[in-house]
């Protein structure tokens, strides 16, 4: 398999924050809004550099989404920042009507997605956000996998015209995507080619998929690792091309099975290329307090879970 040296360790939210800082310097249409979580979202540098382009809205996420929609009328490119839970389920109707249906160029940037925010527990661990957002017509949904990719995605969405949901997280995780790797919205990245099983992963699970790839290789199983950073629009051609070769698929995501990446891929395969599939995802349950690693272990989102999913799907070929 292709080797990805660890370039360091950082949280993906810092990739967002640093991307936003760069956009502040390069694109004067970019404005940012935050609902009392500047530190958590790493938006402090943008706020410091551009106080006139930064809006602290307080703990009022619905109002933040509406103001963001309004700012586009006048040519601004608003980036909203709060936790993933408060970026989606709390404000779903505001996003649906004032942003998605109204076709507004708002970038909804969401940190602390999934289980790995840890000790705050289930109230804050949104595991349904990808599903909610991908159901909205014309919404683009992106879940990058490390610091570099999150930064690249942040820069890319400013250039794209239309509503975007950008999902990232709290914990420090390995950086392995080369800094100069191009980021193209809607274009999957084959991280490692293989012949026996396709593993489609998004977000924090991409690194675990690469770890699983190594373990599978030691067992004589050749896995193909595909990084799906854009869940919608899904790169159907990349999905089909890989599964045509391997004849089976595993998906891995820090999200509910219902509504997630696995469901999107199953939809493509069931129509175009019915193939055995296994899913590594949270299965119809809420999270709880704990360290990120404890939670990933308890809810079945580890490297070992991906390995056993690959072994299982191979038996069904």
């Amino acid at each position, binding site marked *: 398999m292709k080797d990805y040296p660890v370039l360091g360790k950082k949280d993906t939210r810092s990739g967002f924050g640093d991307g936003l800082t760069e956009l502040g310097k390069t694109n004067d249409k970019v404005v940012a809004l935050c609902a009392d979580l500047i530190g958590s979202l790493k938006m402090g540098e943008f706020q410091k550099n551009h106080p006139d382009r930064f*809006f602290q809205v307080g703990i009022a996420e619905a109002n933040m989404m*509406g*103001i963001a929609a*309004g700012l586009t*009328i*006048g040519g601004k490119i608003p980036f909203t920042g709060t936790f993933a839970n408060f970026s989606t389920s709390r404000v779903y109707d*505001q996003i649906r009507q004032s942003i998605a249906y109204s076709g507004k160029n708002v970038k909804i940037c969401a940190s602390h997605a999934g289980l790995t925010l840890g000790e705050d527990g289930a109230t804050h661990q949104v595991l349904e956000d990808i599903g909610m957002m991908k159901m909205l017509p014309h919404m683009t949904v992106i879940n990058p996998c490390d610091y570099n990719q999150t930064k690249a995605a942040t820069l890319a969405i400013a250039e794209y015209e239309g509503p975007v949901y950008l999902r990232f997280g709290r914990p420090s995780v390995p950086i392995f995507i080369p800094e100069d790797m191009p980021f193209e919205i809607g274009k999957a990245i084959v991280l490692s080619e293989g012949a026996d099983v396709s593993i489609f992963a998004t977000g924090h699970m991409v690194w675990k998929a690469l770890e699983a790839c190594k373990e599978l290789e030691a067992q004589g199983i050749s896995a193909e690792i595909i990084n799906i950073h854009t869940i919608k629009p899904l790169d159907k051609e990349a999905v089909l091309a890989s599964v045509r070769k391997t004849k089976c698929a595993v998906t891995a995501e820090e999200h509910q099975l219902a509504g997630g990446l696995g469901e999107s891929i199953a939809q493509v395969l069931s129509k175009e290329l019915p193939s055995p599939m296994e899913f590594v995802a949270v299965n119809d349950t809420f999270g709880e307090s704990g360290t990120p690693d404890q939670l990933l272990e308890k809810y079945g989102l580890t490297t070992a879970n991906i390995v056993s999913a690959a072994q299982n799907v191979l038996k069904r070929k």
Partner: protein
Amino acid sequence: MHEKIVNLENFAKQVRRDIVRMVHAVQSGHPGGSLGCADFITCLYQDIMTHNANIFSMDGDNEDLFFLSNGHISPVFYSVLARSGYFPVDELKTFRKINTRLQGHPTTHEGLPGVRIASGSLGQGMSVAIGAALAKKMNGDDKLVYCLHGDGELQEGQIWEAAMYAAGNKVDNLIATVDYNHKQIDGDIDDVLPLGDLRAKFEAFGWFVLEMNGNDIKDILQVMAIAKAKTGQGQPIMIIMKTEMGQGVDFMMGTHKWHGSPPNDEQLASAMAQIPETLGDY
């Protein structure tokens, strides 16, 4: 002044005919609040706002902008937009019909000139208006942003988030109006969920508050002139506009029952007999 008022009254009369005919034709829609706001929306588009109906641009640079937050009174919005030149008056006959740009609730989705945000799910328009007002300030654009809300709509929490933000951040190029007709779908607002002392509430939030009779064009012009003069002084402006739901059609007045009900053929004839055709029916 007198001639201007007569002209505006004649415009509003035709708008009222349009409203009743539109909801009758499709046997659905919201005539009550539409009739109540006909004078106000007429004054906005025919006198108060600086706007360009001929070349609609979404950004509306150097134009005053209006956001209808209580989207269900779309008939009055569509009629005034069409008769102000945003789209052909004849298109009013497509209201609520399949493939129309005149959706039941206003939307940008079908590309109807004059509409800058979808509304219908209540409580969202003030936030959007604030965003547009902030963009104007950033762009050095000294034109104003207007928004209209239903009184029942003020029961939505987002309104108060927006009200707190606008005052706290001195969004003083914003003139919001609430259509205070005291009625909502289920009945009198005091029976459903009382708003209490609305003036005191907005003043306590930090707004400059005015009151006006929304069914008296002279009063509308006078109060809106005061409102305009108060912009740029560090406070958002709220106008509590008293109206009569169903204004202009006797059997629709004094009741909440015409909030969302269309007239039958006889009722249409009765309404038409009460409102003279002034600018020509569509």
